[in-house]
């Protein structure tokens, strides 16, 4: 038995009231602010929610803080794609009758660090023994480490990676809430401050504060809500390794391939059916890996696909594939666990409500990464019932 496409719908969706540098709100309240906005979006109160999922913070903390009495909880916390995976688990739970209405929350004071739990690596963990002694300084020095091997394997130049941010900035220009909206050039990217060669500042995500929340219920209940329902058509998830040094193939993510294939097969779609695509971009190489691992492009070809303008605003023709239409983690916002914001943009596109609306879009694929190629979740959604 697999998930029945279209049987569950997103009926409530919202981001936190503000995004950006927010020193006057805690991480927990960012979750709650987004959750209250999502409930207001679809006319629900906490008493109407009977399932809750969240990451990093325990669902226990959120349930009590929001005054929710859940019959189902999910604390899957595998990084920024946790929310895609929550969608999958929520669909299964609702379909199985374990609960009726699930709230998924994200909040993160990534920049201001207000009310943020202490994070750290122990010296006797695998990472502490076999990676930390060599001086990695977080994701900019680890998520990026496979890229030189990719570039050499396929003979791709770094300008193809730099271009990802240039194209996404064009999309960000449509969004009043995007952090960075002014156009940039490849020279701007290649002349920005060196962070970890070959990665420069404008190839790395920004770091901001914010939150987001989703509310899911059975599709047959969706018509009783004021919002346009967004139907979940297929979902996939996987994990590979928490050690970037141990990923199987430095030119491809196994977790991406497994999650993506599972979601596409579940939805019964082909790549030609996809009108809109989100690929979590903590760094500029991720859309390249994602396009290839999801099967939109052949190996080594995604940089050229983007270079040729197929993912940019105004692209036409059979190859047109609007990608990261909020500007992505490189331009829109990135709190640390960005996956929720990718989901929000997919929902906006399916509702016909994105400031960068893709005309006539009926099917969106939202693909997330967790950790550093450690985990993945893929959600296929549509504004048409199954």
């Amino acid at each position, binding site marked *: 038995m697999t998930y029945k496409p279209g049987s569950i719908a997103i009926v409530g969706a919202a981001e936190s009231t503000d995004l950006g540098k927010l020193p006057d709100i805690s991480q927990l309240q960012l979750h709650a602010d987004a959750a209250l906005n999502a409930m207001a979006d679809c006319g629900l109160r906490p008493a109407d929610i009977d399932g809750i999922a969240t990451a990093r913070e325990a669902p226990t903390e959120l349930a009590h803080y929001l005054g929710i009495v859940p019959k189902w909880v999910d604390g899957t916390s595998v990084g920024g794609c946790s929310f895609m995976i929550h969608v999958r688990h929520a669909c299964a739970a609702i379909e199985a009758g374990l609960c009726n209405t699930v709230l998924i929350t994200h909040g993160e004071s990534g920049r201001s660090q207000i009310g943020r739990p202490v994070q750290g690596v*122990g*010296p*006797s963990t*695998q990472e*502490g*023994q*076999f*990676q*930390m*002694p*060599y*001086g*990695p*300084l977080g994701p*900019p*020095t*680890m998520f*990026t*480490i*496979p*890229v*030189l*091997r990719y570039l*050499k394997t396929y003979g791709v130049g770094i300008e193809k990676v730099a271009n990802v941010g240039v194209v996404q900035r064009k999309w960000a220009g449509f969004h009043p809430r995007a952090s960075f909206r002014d156009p940039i050039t490849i020279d701007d990217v290649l002349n920005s*401050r*060196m*962070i*970890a*060669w*070959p*990665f420069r500042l404008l190839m790395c995500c920004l770091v901001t504060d914010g939150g987001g929340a989703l509310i899911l219920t059975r599709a047959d209940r969706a018509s009783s809500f004021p919002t346009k329902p967004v139907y979940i058509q297929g979902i996939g998830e996987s994990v590979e390794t928490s*050690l*970037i*040094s*141990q990923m199987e193939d*430095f030119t491809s993510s196994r977790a991406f391939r497994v999650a993506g294939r599972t979601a596409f097969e579940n939805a019964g779609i082909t790549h030609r059916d996809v009108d809109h695509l989100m690929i979590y971009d903590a760094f500029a190489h991720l859309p390249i890996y994602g396009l290839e691992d999801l099967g939109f492009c052949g190996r080594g070809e995604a940089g050229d696909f983007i270079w040729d303008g197929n993912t940019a605003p105004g692209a036409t023709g059979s190859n047109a594939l609007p990608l990261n239409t909020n500007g992505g983690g490189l331009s829109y916002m990135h709190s640390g666990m960005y996956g929720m914001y990718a989901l929000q943009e997919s929902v906006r596109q399916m509702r016909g409500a994105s400031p960068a609306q893709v005309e006539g879009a009926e099917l969106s694929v939202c693909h997330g990464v967790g950790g550093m190629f450690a985990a993945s979740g893929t959600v296929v959604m549509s504004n048409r019932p199954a």
Partner: protein
Amino acid sequence: MSDYQKWIPVPTPETRHFWDGCREGRLLLQRCGDTGRAYFPPRPFSPYTGSRNVSVFEASGQGALYSYVINHRPARGFDAPYAIAIVQLPEGVRMMTNIVECEQTPEALELDMPLEVCFEKIDDDISLPLWRPAHG
């Protein structure tokens, strides 16, 4: 060596043999008894089959530069810019490392260049495996 400012690993019972080997200047890997395939990091069973039929063996100490970044931001104990690298061992495993006795530049750090293991003594218990350009 109290002036050592970098991160010092702490072994677990499952990794103790690896760090004991490093202290003796030997790079120890493990091999799955069912498939004959080597694996890393250490664990007392095969990640390929789940079998506990595994053995410890000494690696050749040879390798090749597989991928890397050169970090430009300040890091405790390091003089930036410095490379954080992945070495590919002929035994079939990869590990993170720093490349020593080599300029930390894209020109000097050529992918697939041959490397050999060496060890930096941190204290009486821990010596850290590092890699340097192979002297042939």
